């Protein structure tokens, strides 16, 4: 994943995200915030799956669909 743009975003602990280049703002929840922080640290899709399974009570099948959906949302907003 391309994290160049993600690194420029201002992300608060509450999950509020501000893009200083476009002025766009977003909100994400605690899990979304964790995923973004891991992506910023360079974790790939499989590593994100492992980390989320370790932290949350979720099956691999459920998680895969949700994670793909979340990453698609990040791509839609040009964050990754």
């Amino acid at each position: 994943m391309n994290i160049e743009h993600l690194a420029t975003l201002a992300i608060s602990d509450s999950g509020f995200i501000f893009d200083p280049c476009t002025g766009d703002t977003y909100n994400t929840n605690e899990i979304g915030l964790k995923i973004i922080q891991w992506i910023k640290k360079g974790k790939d899709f499989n590593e994100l799956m492992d980390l989320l399974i370790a932290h949350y009570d979720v099956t691999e099948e459920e998680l895969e669909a949700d994670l793909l959906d979340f990453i698609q949302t990040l791509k839609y907003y040009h964050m990754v």
Partner: protein
Amino acid sequence: MITVAVSGINAMDNPGPGVGIIRALKESALNVRTIGLAFDSMEPGIYLDHLIDKSYIMPYPSGEVKSFINRIQDIHSREKLDVIISTLDAELPVYMDIELTLRQWGIQMLIPSKKMFNLRNKTKLEDISKAINILTPEYISCSSYGDLVKATQTIGFPCMIKGPFYEAFKANSMGEADNYFNKLTEKWGFPIIAQKFVKGQEYDVVGCGDGNGNSMGLFAIKKMTTTSLGKVWNAVSIKNERLLETCHQLLKHLSWRGGFELEVLIDEHSDDIYLLEINPRFPAWVYMSSACGINLPERMVRFLLDMPYETHSNYDSGKIMIRYTNEILKDISDFEQISSYGELENNERLP
């Protein structure tokens, strides 16, 4: 003490830039006496005694140039003006005609030449956008109803129907285009611009050029909310290098002289920058730039008076401007002064 006269002090729902400029000057390091130039006794700036020291009623710029210049001469004889900052598109051509005379009197202005002014006309945006490597939505200038019909057939719907000076509406059908065309011609006259609708977000940049292609500072915002006339109501400061580079190219291409506002749209799919408009003066939200450390009115005055001035564009992104409405109470005698005598002194000049 520097005396600066500023027009456009109509701080109403469609505000002029004058009050914002004056506030920026009053909050600067300059010792400024501010003179408001109004066209109507009810322009709110006249009554803002914490900002405007004295106001004068001016003749409309659409009238005789002689009476306009006589009024400035009269004001200058009493105020000893150092600088005039013109903020209204409709009066700029008059100031362009008399700038040399004003300079001979000792009054400085930083305004574009007629050639620059005409080059940024709404009907010539394609040439400029090509020159500075950005796009402009396809548009057709309409001088008759027949032109509008042909233009909408070429451009298709939805499209934007825009007035020559102000206001723009999105038309989804010929019926709507017809309605907006009549509304705009009745209010602003011709030409009306029919422009292809591009889906994206609108951004504005305010800046000032020294007439030699150099920037005196730039400041960019994203419009968060707008009024029904499309004017910025709330905004957030942004740092977008592509936008700022576009402005540098524009300044160089036109050797722009004076304040300006660049209005662009960034296509939400392609990320392409589309040029929407170049306004030849500071916008009404100019105070936001000075509050964020880019005091362009102050820099303009310093430049004109050969004082050192900053040119940097270092400001924080993520600052939001909240515009709000407010009320003040004044005595009827103030209204009497301005409406009967054409002037109102808020603060006496100190010796």
